[in-house]
Each structure stands twice: as structure tokens, then as C-alpha cells.
């Protein structure tokens, strides 16, 4: 019986991280997987949960692909809120209207996919005409969406009025000859939407004009229907808001954004917008009025998810843990066996000492040979520290920086027994606080192996604030574990580090390759990342570790005025290939504060560089440098990283400590 049960549990296994595209999650899946960031973070993105419905100004949520925008936005939709209320209210909708009034409104989610949006241009039709057709189409989509919600409220008998009071008014609004029922109205909306689809199909082969049965200019439905609802449905209180959620706004063409920007600018009481887009997702700030535009703060409030979902933001790792737990709990075998803590399954953090020992096992003295020309003959004997090859490497570095071998050898002995003399203290301090990670990267380089990127903490870093990256890293790790040793996964609830590392590296390579295909300047961005990754790699391979963990660069973005450099750089931000550090920082010790950028950490395994922000040296670039990085086949680090140590090492920040 027990065996049968085990078989059943194993048979029901599915990769817990397999579904992660929030666009296709069903309502119940959204509720299963939902982690409320307002409950996890002390102050999430400087907004409160109340603002979702009650804030009258539009809110614009910006974040990279996979940052969780869609999941976040879809959670607030009418369908999800209704189901949530139903479940929490003993499968009953009594009181739902009061709940909505209390929350502050209802939201309708609009996503128009890229191929459709892109079909609203060209074919020798002027942009102005396409703008009108799109606006008409958008009004119909929003109108239908609100109509479906109101119909549902009536169908669920949550509203007292007779439906005809409302439908008569809507019939008039759309110029219908007779008073129509909800179903008839929705059918009419469908037909009108189909008129647009048919036109989009015909225009490619035929010279046709767009002649809709009735045209719907901007606001005629999107603003008027909510107003009509508020005026005619007594249950909705005065402050009730109809919220239009638009997702993937970065895909909207420029002329389409002009139309929608105008709506954002002129929101009225009772109607507002929540918009999801990538960073730099505004193609334009223009509105249809030639001398007017939308402005952050005045016309909308910007919420950058990556600022909130940051490894340094307290709560981010907890947030990831909760997200993972929700998924793991869905898998019977994990739920039954209590394997629902992802930080235990992956291990909380890397064990660099253990990795170093494993790495050097077959050839334990290779790193000594690597520094042969800098070391006295007895170095292998005197600096041997079997317990930790990283300490050995640090000791070697001390020699290259002028310390005497006998002093370093003694420091090693003192360090081992806890007798913290000057040099032993420095050894301990440098190892723990400065170089441990760099030493590991360098050691793997010396042994011609790849550094292993694994553990929950590492995956958190690699995700760069993009939850989707974290989920994909987990998905790949579970997939490899299932393929390689399913029994072990099920019996121990652990995933070995080499499986995780393979997952991280594969994903890193895959993401890098995909840059090439980015619609806006993908080829330039690919070259940019290749060159920059290689520059940072050079720093990490520096045998003297003069600039540990260099993985950021400084540029005054406002100086990037030339095209296509400016647009390509913005595209890098939009696609989260480049990440802007949240505040101005000093690029090198002693220099002024400037804008710092980093590569998305997901590329770290491919370039074998650090995923942490270490501080210290950052590459400082000019506009010309950025051009060269984008357009040339190779680019060299700014600092001299030769194997010959300069006698004048005034720019070597690390020797200042001696």
C-alpha cells in the first residue's frame, strides 16, 4: 500500500517551476502562486496596496521581462478578485459589492500582443489614419471588457437595478437602433472588433478603406461606460474607480502610445489607468495635442519594480522563498515530504572553500606553478595550507605584493591557530571581507575550469531583481535533477550543486544568445554585452587581483546623444540587458558621484564574473567608448592588467592597505 502511494506521488511529479508565464496562468493558478509584495516588503515601491484602486493618477509599473509585472497586474483584475473573495467568503459572493467599494474599484486587464499592435501600420496608409483605427479598436476592447464585468455583476445578482436601466443607456451610447440585452451588446462589440480585424487582413492585398459601422473616438467608450455605470448603478459609491490595466505598453507603436498617453493625461474621477511596461518603455511622451506631453509626477507616477525587487532590498530573498514555496507546495511529493523550502533544496549559499578543495584535488599545487616566476623555490612548502587553497592563493598574492615569505608563512600558522598578529589579522580580514570571491574566480581560471554558480543566495543575485530569472534558474535545476537522478531528488529533496551550476550556465548562455534577436538594436546590444563581459572577465582573471570583482561601468547617459548609440543603450535598459544602479555612486574611490550601470547578473556564469556589487574600481566610459563597445569586435579594459607588475602601483587601490 505504501509502495503504491510512493509510486502515485512520483507519477504525479511535475517540475514545480514549469509554468511561469503569467499571461497564461488561470485565475486559480494566479491565486495559488500569488505572493503579496505589500506583505513581504516594508514599503513596496513607495506605494500602498490601497493605491492600486484608489490612487486617481495613473500608475506606471516598470520592470524587465520576467520581473513579475503581469502577475502583479493580473492579480488586481476583477476575475481574480472575485474568485479570491469567493474562496475567502465560504464560497459565497454576498458582500462582494461592499468589498469592491471598500477596495476602491474594479480593474480590467488589457493586453494586446505585439503582432497585433505591429499590424496597425504600413500598407501605404498614413499614420494618422492608423492612429484613428487603433484608437477605435482600443475603445472597443476596453468597452467590451467593462461591459463583461458589469454583466457578470448583474448575472451574479449583486446589483439591485434591473439590467435594462443600464443596457438601454449603453445601447444609446453605441447608437443601437433598439434597446439591446447584455448578450446582444457584447455581440455588437465583437462584430465591431472583427471589422477592424477584417480590415487589417484585407489592407495587405486590396486597396480598401476602413469604414466601420460606427466609429468610436478616444474616450467615447473607455471613459463613458464607467461614467454611465457609476451614474446608473446605485451600489457603486462615489469614490468607486474603474481601472484600466494596460500591459506590455512598450510594444505599443509610437502613434499608439500618443493616443494612450492622451488618455493617461486626461483621466477623470472614477476612471484611471495602471500600466505595465519595461524600463524605457515609453517610445514617446507626446499626446495628440502637439504642444502637450505627459510628465512623470504630474500626469503619472512611476514605479520601478527592480528598485523594489533588489537583492539589497530587505525582503527580496524572503519574497523569492515564498514564491518558490507556493510552487513547491503544489507538487504532492514535495508537499508530503516537507521539501518546500527552496533555500534548503538548493542550499542557502555557496561553499567556496569546499569548491576550491574539489577544484584542486587532482593537481593541488597548480596555482603555485602559475606564479612560479614571482615565488621563491620553497613557496610550495612554506605556503601550503591544505585546508583551504583560497588561503594559499591569498598568501601567494601577499608575496607578489612584497611581503616576505617567512612572514607570510608565519601568518598562515598564526591564522590557523587563531593568533592574530598584524599579518595574520590582515590575512583574515582580506580573505573574509575582500578577496574570497575573487580568489575563487581566479582559482577556477588558473585551473581552466568554470566557477560553479549555485545556491539559493546566488540564484537570488543572478536574478537581478527579475523574479522570472529566478524561476527559470530553478526550473532548469529541477529539470536536470529529474533527468539525472530523480530518485535522489525525491528522497533527499536536494539538488546537487553541479546540476544547479549547469542550469545557471545554460541559462546564462541562452539569455546571451537571445540578445541578438532583440527587436531594437539587438545586434549592437549583443556586441556590447560580449565586449563588456570580456572586459570584466579580464579583470577577474588578473593574477594580481588589482581590481577585485570589477563588473560595473560609469557613463553620463545624457552624453549619449548620437544615434543609434542612444537608442541602443536605452534598448539595453528596456530589455534589462543593462541595469542601472539605483542611485548615483562614486565610480572609483575619490571620484565624483556618477551614474553606474552593470550587466544583468544573469550573464555572470557565461563570462565567469562576479554577480555581487563589490565597489572599488568601475570602468569609466565616454560616449566614444560606448560606441566602440557596441560596434567593434573587441574592447580592452581601461586598466593595465598585464602579468608584469608595474613598480609604480599608485593606481592599485589594494596595496594601500600594506
Amino acid at each position, binding site marked *: 500500500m505504501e509502495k503504491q502511494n510512493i509510486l502515485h506521488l512520483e507519477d504525479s511529479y511535475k517540475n514545480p517551476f514549469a509554468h511561469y508565464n503569467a499571461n497564461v496562468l488561470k485565475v486559480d493558478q494566479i491565486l495559488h502562486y500569488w505572493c503579496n509584495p505589500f506583505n513581504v516588503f516594508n514599503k513596496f515601491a513607495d506605494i500602498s496596496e490601497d493605491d492600486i484602486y484608489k490612487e486617481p493618477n495613473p500608475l506606471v509599473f516598470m520592470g524587465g521581462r520576467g520581473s513579475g509585472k503581469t502577475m502583479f497586474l493580473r492579480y488586481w483584475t476583477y476575475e481574480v478578485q472575485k474568485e479570491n473573495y469567493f474562496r475567502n467568503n465560504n464560497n459565497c459572493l454576498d458582500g462582494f459589492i461592499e468589498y469592491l467599494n471598500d477596495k476602491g474599484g474594479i480593474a480590467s486587464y488589457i493586453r494586446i500582443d505585439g503582432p497585433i499592435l505591429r499590424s496597425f501600420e504600413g500598407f501605404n496608409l498614413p499614420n494618422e489614419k492608423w492612429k484613428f483605427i487603433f484608437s477605435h479598436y482600443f475603445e472597443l476592447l476596453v468597452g467590451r471588457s467593462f461591459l463583461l464585468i458589469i454583466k457578470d455583476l448583474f448575472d451574479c445578482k449583486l446589483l439591485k437595478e434591473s439590467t435594462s436601466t443600464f443596457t438601454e443607456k449603453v445601447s444609446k451610447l453605441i447608437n443601437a437602433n433598439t434597446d439591446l440585452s447584455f448578450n446582444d451588446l457584447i455581440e455588437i462589440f465583437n462584430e465591431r472588433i472583427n471589422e477592424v480585424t477584417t480590415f*487589417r*487582413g484585407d489592407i*495587405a*492585398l486590396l486597396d480598401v478603406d476602413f469604414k466601420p459601422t460606427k466609429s468610436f473616438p478616444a474616450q467615447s467608450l473607455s471613459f463613458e461606460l464607467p461614467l454611465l455605470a457609476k451614474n446608473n448603478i446605485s451600489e457603486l459609491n462615489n469614490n468607486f474607480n474603474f481601472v484600466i490595466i494596460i500591459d506590455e505598453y512598450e510594444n505599443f507603436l509610437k502613434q499608439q502610445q500618443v493616443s494612450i498617453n492622451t488618455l493617461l493625461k486626461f483621466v477623470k474621477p472614477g476612471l484611471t489607468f495602471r500600466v505595465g511596461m519595461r524600463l524605457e518603455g515609453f517610445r514617446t511622451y507626446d499626446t495628440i495635442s502637439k504642444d502637450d506631453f505627459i510628465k512623470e509626477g504630474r500626469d503619472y507616477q512611476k514605479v520601478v519594480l527592480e528598485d523594489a525587487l533588489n537583492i539589497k532590498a530587505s525582503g527580496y530573498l524572503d519574497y523569492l522563498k515564498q514564491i518558490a514555496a507556493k510552487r513547491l507546495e503544489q507538487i504532492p511529493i514535495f508537499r508530503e515530504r516537507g521539501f518546500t523550502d527552496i533555500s534548503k533544496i538548493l542550499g542557502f549559499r555557496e561553499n567556496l572553500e569546499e569548491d576550491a578543495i574539489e577544484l584542486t584535488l587532482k593537481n593541488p599545487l597548480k596555482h603555485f606553478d602559475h606564479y612560479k616566476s614571482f615565488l621563491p623555490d620553497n613557496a610550495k612548502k612554506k605556503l601550503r595550507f591544505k585546508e583551504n587553497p583560497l588561503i594559499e592563493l591569498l598568501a601567494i598574492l601577499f608575496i607578489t605584493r612584497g611581503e616576505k615569505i617567512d612572514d607570510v608563512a608565519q601568518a598562515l600558522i598564526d591564522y590557523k591557530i587563531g593568533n592574530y598578529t598584524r599579518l595574520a589579522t590582515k590575512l583574515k580580514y582580506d580573505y573574509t571581507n575582500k578577496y574570497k570571491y575573487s580568489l575563487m574566480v581566479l582559482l577556477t581560471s588558473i585551473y581552466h575550469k568554470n566557477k560553479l554558480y549555485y545556491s539559493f543566495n546566488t540564484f537570488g543575485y543572478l536574478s537581478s531583481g527579475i523574479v522570472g530569472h529566478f524561476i527559470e534558474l530553478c526550473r532548469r535545476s529541477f529539470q536536470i535533477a529529474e533527468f539525472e537522478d530523480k530518485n535522489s531528488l525525491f528522497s533527499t529533496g536536494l539538488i546537487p550543486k553541479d546540476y544547479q551550476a549547469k542550469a545557471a550556465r545554460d541559462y546564462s548562455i541562452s539569455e546571451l544568445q537571445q540578445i541578438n*534577436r532583440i527587436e531594437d538594436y539587438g*545586434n549592437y546590444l549583443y556586441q556590447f554585452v560580449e565586449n563588456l563581459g570580456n572586459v570584466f572577465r579580464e579583470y577577474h582573471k588578473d593574477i594580481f587581483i588589482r581590481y577585485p570583482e570589477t563588473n560595473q561601468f560609469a557613463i553620463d547617459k545624457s552624453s549619449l546623444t548620437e544615434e543609434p548609440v542612444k537608442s541602443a543603450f536605452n534598448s539595453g535598459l528596456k530589455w534589462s540587458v543593462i541595469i542601472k544602479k539605483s542611485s548615483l555612486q562614486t565610480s572609483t574611490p575619490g571620484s565624483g558621484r556618477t551614474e553606474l550601470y552593470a550587466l544583468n547578473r544573469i550573464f555572470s556564469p557565461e563570462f565567469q564574473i562576479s554577480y555581487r556589487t563589490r565597489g572599488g574600481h568601475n570602468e569609466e566610459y565616454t560616449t566614444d567608448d560606448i560606441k566602440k563597445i557596441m560596434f567593434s569586435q573587441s574592447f580592452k579594459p581601461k586598466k593595465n592588467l598585464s602579468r608584469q607588475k608595474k613598480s609604480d602601483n599608485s593606481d592599485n587601490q589594494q596595496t594601500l592597505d600594506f
Partner: protein
Amino acid sequence: MVREQYEMKQLEFETDIPFSSLDYLFIAAGASHRAYKVLDILERIKIKKLIVIDFIERRESEKIYQEKYYSYKNRNIEIITLNANINDSSGLLKSLVVKGVDIKRNDNIGIDITCFPRPFIFSFLKYFQKVNAISHANVFYSEPKAYVFKNGFCKTFKSSSGPIKIIELPTFTGENINDTDRLLIVVLGFDADLSKEINFEVAPKKTVLINGFPGFSPKFKEISLINNEVLIANQNNEIAYCKANNPFEMYNTLLDIYLTKGKELFVNIAPIGPKPLVLGTCLFAIHHPSVRVIYPQPEKYLNEDTSNDTWCSWYYKLPLYRVGGDL
């Protein structure tokens, strides 16, 4: 269910050709070994007008092969050369009549799709059906014998380079009146970047991957599976197989998926695989206007670098109307 018998033939000899004349034969100029093989096979067939689509981008990139590229001119046929932009099939088709290509309903039309970019195959066949009301098209295709893999690795294969944008193929917008969830069917090619991007953009509820198997040659076996490993490994995705040189089998495979999995879903098909399968997809989409055809439009096609040498040439009689039911 009413069924219609399909007609396809491997072309080895002139006697394999089931007609004696064509009013129009459409070909696309190219420097590939395969570009004019069908033209050679049809040497003794009376072709009233040879319409050559000369893609500006391709002409520019193949300057070193000029002689080969323009070798179609050495034929004793009336030739109309049409300059075209590789991303604008619509502009070309709308200008056909003005340029002297005024197709009539009863004309016998031939089209050699060997060097046609995939979106053009769709636009042309739809044009023949919708604008010219042609009942059937005679379609030709010459298979590649080998593909060029950079550094010899099949994973390096690219059919295009640079950025892509996912578009609806003109006139194949489909119908998604109720904004329902999507079923994505990807006709797999060797180029993995494309399928991943399409899957993300369409955000389907379900994805079915169609692999051309058996391939044109046993040595092509499993390359598309290896290269599209990420999508294939996704437990939510299904794989179907279809013989790589048979558009009609493709049609039936799509029909089966459409009927069994496509109910209540908005069916999206991405034809990025072998041309005969693309042809089958095109025919299916013409017969089923509710499905949408999407395509990753590249900034640049890699025309002749991707394959070399010629294998078999094929003839397909394509019924553009669903007169007798499904094939």
C-alpha cells in the same frame, strides 16, 4: 468527412510534369544551386510569362555571384522582372497588374517556392486565391542536399541574422473575437532563437511543436530537436511529427491538432520549418481563416549561406479552395 486526394510528385523527368503549359511561372532570383533547377526541369514546358522576383536586399548581398544570380535571363521566355523589398510582399502584390502581371481566374499558375522567403509564399498564394480566384496553384520546390553549419556545429545554424520582430503575416490575422487563450503551433526549423521568441510573444496556453521527420535526408534527423531543446524540454509543450517534404501531410497534422486541441482556443501557427511544411501551413491557413499565422521577421535573411547543393525537386498541386473538404 469528405476528403480530397492530394497530388504531389518528385520531378525527375519532363514526363513527370502533369501539364504542358503555364500562363505564369513565379520564381525568386537567387544564387543558390537550387534557384533555377525547377526552371531547368520545366525547359520543354511552354511558359508564357516568367515572373522573376528580384529582391533588392538579396541582389546587393550576392554581388559576387552575379552571373549565377542572373542566369535565369538566358531563357527564351518572356520575362518580367519585379523588384521587391524582402519585407514588403503587400506592396509587390498590389502593383502586379500595373507591372503587366494581370492574372485571370482560369490561368494556369506555377510558383517555385525554392528561393521565396516564407512570408512571400503565404502572400502570393493568398493573393492567387482571394484576388485572382485561382482554383489551384502548381507549386515547385527543390530540396537542399546539405546545410552550412558554422564551425561544423548544428547548434550554430542561423537562417537569419540580427534582431527579429514577431509579426502577423499580412492577411493571416486570424479571428480572435472573444480574446480567448492561444494555442501555438510551431513548425520547427533549425534556428532555435526564433521559436523561443515566438513562444514568449504569443504567450500561448499550450504549444505544439511540429518536427519535420523523416527529414529531407537522414543526416538532418533530430537537428531541429537538438536546437530547440529548451522548448521541447518544457513539459507543457507537445511534439508532433510530419514528413519534411509533404505539405499535405502537414495539412492533415495541423487539421488534427486544430480539431483535437484548438477548440475554443485562438490558433496561432509559426511556420519557421522546411518549406514544404510551410506550404502545408499556408494551405491550411487559407482554408481556415480563423487561424493566425505569425512569423519572426528578421532584419536580414541569410539567403544562400545556409544550404548548398540540390536534392530532389517536387511538384505539388495545391487546391486553394476547400471544395471537397479536408485533404
